Every structure is written in structure tokens, then in C-alpha cells.
């Protein structure tokens, strides 16, 4: 499958995936214990119905416009472009969304689904805390009871977001099992969901998990790419030559990429967390360095050892510190439509400082990975070329981490 000739691929057919059973080629599917199967069937049916329902779409669009503040701007980063010394760099400003990241595009959608199911409680897993905050926010607005599972390590490094969630009325449960990061938070959320499936809706924060989650998260996040297309036409009179996004579980990236899949002139780059470098094991780059396997309900590329045990990962950014990735990315990698690359901790930190200092925009550490790679890429391209970077979130939540790394006590 990895030897597929990309010119032979029918890209229109690629956009029709997943198939009815939730598969993107060999990836995706539904690998959960029996207790959850019927809840997933129900959710699939509900989503299939509501996604065709103009009323639902109208409600969703209204919330995106008036609660989230969409469309988010496409900003020409002139000084960043100058510094990189090549292609023009535009930033898709998801950092300007309500709650400060792309995550809310998805939580608004899923919370609306929850409302239609009539379930009074929602749960979420979170890494950086952005998805937790976005879920707590929509739960507050809709009057839903909200519980967020977060790895104990992440509770420590994203304190600000933990307090934000608590202010919003959510209960934050630190997870100490396993490596105490995002993957363990997801395990614990699944366990809670199995036990409370009757009255609880699980709002998954990334384009991974059992079918139909990868599809519905992708659909809700695709607003990013659709707006980018339109805005690129307005600014440049054409589509960009390349789009770049960071990849944790892959939701902001698939939201940017999906609407461009059929536009072959647009090169796509997904930037994984290179941590201390891809030579060792201290990174979180399953697409660059992992193997296919099954975790958290889907088949996808994973960081795993020779016995199929999931490996601990490392990234300076909590939101990318995950050993798996959404199944659609695994498929897009194999067919060669998207290039998956990595940026290290150091490169991301440098990009964080650069963007802050020369554009007055403080990016999330996750998004800083995309900025870092885009600057390298821009330097290899002509000045009349156009790159769009998905600036998935703002960096306020990371000030503590960055200060710590700079040796400053706040």
C-alpha cells in the first residue's frame, strides 16, 4: 500500500472516505470493547442524519460566526516572510477563535450533537488543555455537566488551562496511570464512557478514535480549509502553493488539508513533534517514524515497540505529545498526498520567539512546530509562491513552559 503510485490515485474518491465501516484504506475502523459499539452506531446514525439537516447546519454556522468569531483572518506575515527569505507566508489565525485555538470548531459541533441526543453530561480528554477548555466552554453555555480527563504531567505543565476549566465549571480529573499524558487521558475517558454510556456524550478532541469520530471531527474542522481557499482567492487570486499544519492527533491539520485534497497544485505538509530529534525515541512522530497498529479505537500509525506496546513520547508541547494520529493522515501518507515531516523542540521554541518578536503574535507551542517548518520551506521556494500556515492556537497557555525553559521563574 505504501508503494501506491500517487498519479494513479483518484483524489475525488479519497475525499469520499471513510467508507461505511469507517475505514480509510486499511486505517480507521472501530476497535473498542462491545459495550461501546451500540453507542457508536447510534452516533454514526445521528451524525449521518444531522449532517444532512439544514437546521443543524444553520445552528452550527450561527455559533461559528457569533460565538467563535469566524471567519478567522488569513493574515499576510510580511516580516516573517522577509526573515524566511522566500515564499510569502500567510497565517490562518485560528488563535483568534474564542478560547484561543481551533479546538472549539469541533467542540461546538459535537456539543450540538450531544444536545440532540439529550444526554446531560459530556466528557473530554485533553493534552494541552485547549480541547478541555473548549469543551468546558461549550458545556457552560449549553448547561451540560462537564468532566475533563488530563494526564497528571499535563496538569502540571498546563496549569493555566486547568484553572480555566475549573472556572468554567468543569471537573478536571488528573490521570496518573501509564505515562500520565494525553494517551492515558484518552484511556481514562474511554473507561469512564463505558461505565456511563447511557447519560454521557464523549467529545473527542482530535481526528482520531473509533468511527465516526475521525470523520465528524474532520468535517467540523474543515471550515479552516474552506475559509482558507476563499481567502487565498481574495488575497492572491489563486490557491496557495503549499499549506502547513502541525499534527498531534491531526485535527487542525485535517481541517486545513481536507478541502485541498483534490487540488493537486497545493502541496501539503503535516509537521509532527520531533522532540529531541528523530534519531532517538524522544519524539512524538508516528507518521515519520512509527508503524501501523491499533490504539484508541482505530488502526493508524503508532509509536510502538517490537512487542506492540505503546511507547512513551516526548514533546515540549503537550498537545502534540501523543503516540498515535488520526487514521486519515495515515492514509494520506501512504498514498503520498501529504508530506509528513517533523520539527524539534528547539526549532519550535525558536519559531515561538521569532513570531512573537517580529509579528507580535504569540503562537501555541504546537503551532510553533508548523511555523518552524514553514520558514524552512519558504526559504526553498521562490518569492512569488504562497504558503499558508495553520496557526492553530495562541501561546498564552505556554508562557509558563517557555519561561521555565528560558530559566525564568514567574
Amino acid at each position: 500500500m505504501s508503494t501506491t503510485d500517487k498519479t494513479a490515485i483518484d483524489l475525488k474518491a479519497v475525499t469520499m472516505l471513510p467508507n461505511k465501516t469507517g475505514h480509510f484504506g486499511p486505517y480507521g475502523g472501530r476497535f473498542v470493547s462491545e459495550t461501546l459499539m451500540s453507542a457508536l452506531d447510534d452516533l454514526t446514525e445521528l451524525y449521518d442524519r444531522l449532517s444532512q439537516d439544514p437546521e443543524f447546519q444553520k445552528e452550527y454556522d450561527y455559533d461559528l460566526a457569533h460565538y467563535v468569531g469566524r471567519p478567522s483572518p488569513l493574515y499576510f506575515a510580511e516580516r516573517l516572510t522577509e526573515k524566511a527569505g522566500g515564499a510569502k507566508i500567510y497565517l490562518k489565525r485560528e488563535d483568534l477563535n474564542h478560547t484561543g485555538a481551533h479546538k472549539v470548531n469541533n467542540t461546538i459541533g459535537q456539543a450540538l450533537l450531544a444536545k440532540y441526543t439529550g444526554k446531560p453530561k459530556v466528557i473530554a480528554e485533553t493534552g494541552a488543555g485547549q480541547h478541555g477548555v473548549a469543551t468546558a466552554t461549550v458545556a457552560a453555555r449549553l448547561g451540560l455537566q462537564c468532566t475533563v480527563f488530563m494526564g497528571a504531567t499535563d496538569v502540571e505543565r498546563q496549569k493555566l488551562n486547568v484553572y480555566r476549566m475549573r472556572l468554567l465549571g468543569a471537573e478536571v480529573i488528573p490521570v496518573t496511570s501509564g505515562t500520565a499524558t494525553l494517551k492515558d487521558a484518552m484511556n481514562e475517558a474511554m473507561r469512564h464512557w463505558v461505565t456511563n454510556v447511557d447519560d454521557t456524550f464523549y467529545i473527542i478532541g482530535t481526528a482520531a478514535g473509533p468511527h465516526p469520530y475521525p470523520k465528524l471531527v474532520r468535517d467540523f474542522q474543515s471550515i479552516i480549509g474552506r475559509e482558507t481557499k476563499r481567502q487565498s482567492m481574495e488575497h492572491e487570486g489563486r490557491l496557495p502553493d503549499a499549506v502547513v499544519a502541525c499534527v498531534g492527533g491531526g485535527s487542525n491539520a485535517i481541517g486545513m488539508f481536507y478541502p485541498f485534497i483534490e487540488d493537486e497544485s497545493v502541496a501539503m505538509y503535516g509537521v509532527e513533534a520531533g522532540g529531541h530529534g528523530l534519531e532517538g525515541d524522544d519524539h512524538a512522530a508516528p507518521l515519520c517514524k512509527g508503524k501501523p497498529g491499533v490504539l484508541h479505537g482505530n488502526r493508524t500509525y503508532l509509536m510502538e515497540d517490537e512487542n506492540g506496546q505503546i511507547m512513551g513520547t516526548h514533546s515540549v508541547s503537550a498537545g502534540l505529545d501523543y503516540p498515535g494520529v488520526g487514521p486519515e493522515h495515515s492514509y494520506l501518507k501512504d498514498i503520498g498526498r501529504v508530506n509528513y515531516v517533523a520539527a524539534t523542540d528547539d526549532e519550535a521554541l525558536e519559531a515561538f520567539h521569532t513570531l512573537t518578536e517580529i509579528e507580535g503574535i504569540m503562537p501555541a507551542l504546537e503551532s510553533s512546530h508548523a511555523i518552524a517548518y514553514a520558514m524552512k520551506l519558504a526559504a526553498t521556494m521562490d518569492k512569488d509562491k504562497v504558503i499558508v500556515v495553520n496557526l492553530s492556537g495562541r501561546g498564552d497557555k505556554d508562557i509558563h513552559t517557555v519561561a521555565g525553559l528560558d530559566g525564568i521563574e514567574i
Partner: protein
Amino acid sequence: MNRVDQCFADLKASGKKALIPFITGGDPKPGLTVELMHTLVESGADIIELGVPFSDPMADGPTIQLACERALRHNTSLRDILAMVKTFRETNTTTPVVLMGYLNPVEIMGYENFAKTASESGLDGALVVDMPPEESEVLAGYFKQHDLKLVFLMAPTTPDARATTICEHGSGYLYYVSVKGVTGSAALDIDDVKANLDRIRAKTQLPLGVGFGIKDGKTAAAVAKVADAVIVGSALVRCIEENENEPDVIKQRLSALMTEMRTAMDA
């Protein structure tokens, strides 16, 4: 005849119900597992469910999560577990052994390789917790080739149409999960279990096992009245957890709890 079928046929003939203990292979250390398996047989086990440790046991509560962690401290792998089964078979050729675990270790070993090695090791079947029938076709093919049983879960949330599908795919026995939750969770409601088993029995000839929430003689006896098999996991694993460094105490405790359940079930 596969040992699982033989076992249920024999039990039926003698009017008894199956007692199926679960322990995690490699817990508290790999060198002890085969001995513990023999202890379980000596104290009344009809079939052994042997857990394959996994780093991310999504369907398990804290007790079995910790068992996985103990086993993984010694890097116990799926291959190691199959080797344990092989060693067990050197002195026990009759008691069926069924693996219970998650799909990823099987994926990386390869379905065909797994089925072949399992069969050569004297394994009788497997239950892959996160592999529903919909995703089982390829593994089921290899299992059939090697006369291995593929056991599936049924849950209180399983609607009728799914239950029919599961019955068609399952072999050996069906594992009815008595409560919505993870392993080691709340007490089961026996009337509710009975109603669900009646519903399933109308669809299949397969023996019906019940697990989750069975922890002592009393609960084992109650379940034995309505089911064909009583499956006990966390309560036994706790005996290991509490005596991690004392193999003899572990054996005594396992043996005592097994005997209590066996006696209550057969009374």
C-alpha cells in the same frame, strides 16, 4: 475436538458449570505464571483465561491495569505468553487455555503467525477485547484453519441485531459482560443478567459465560445458576497484587478463593 468444546461437553454430562479464572501472564513475574496456572487447575479451574499484558488496557479497571504494569516491568510479550502456554502443556494436556488481551500485540506479531504459533503452543482460543466481529474476519480465517476458538464479548448495551451477529461469529463460548463498566467494577444484578442470557440463549447453542462483578463463592454460585460458565478476574488478580513478593502466599490465596467458588458453585 478442541479442548474448549470437550470441556463444555464433559461439564454438561456431569451437570456442572465451568469456573474460568483470569490472571495476567507475567504477573507478578513471568517465571511464576505456569505454576499459578497449575494452582488454578488444582483448585477447580475448568478453563484458564490468560491475560496478555498491554500498555493501554482501555477496558480494564485499576486492578488489571496494575497487573499489566507489573508484567510489563519484565517486558512480558505475546510470544512469552505463548511460550508459557507451551510449558503448561508439558504437564497438562486437557485444561483449555484462552488468551485475553488487546489487538495491537497481535497486529505486530501478524495474524497468521499468531494463529500458527498459538496452535503449536497448545492454545485453544482467544478473546481480543478491542476487536469486535466487524473487524475480525482476517483473524477468524486463520483461527479456523488452526481450530482455535474466537471468543467475543456481549454487553448489556448490545442490541438484538448485534447479538445475532456476535452469535454467528463467536466460537467456543460467549462472554457476557454483566455490567456497563471496566473490569473490577460494580456488583452485578443477577435478575438483569438472567434476562439478558435468556435473550442470547434464544439465538445460539454456544455456552454462555458471565464475567465482571464476580468476586466470591456467593456471587459465583448465583451466576452458576443462570450461566454455563463463571469468569473471575480482578478478585484473583488482587490476591497477586497484595502478595507480589510472596509466591507461596499468592498460591494459597488463589487456591482458597478458587476452592470457595468451586464449592459454592457445585453445592
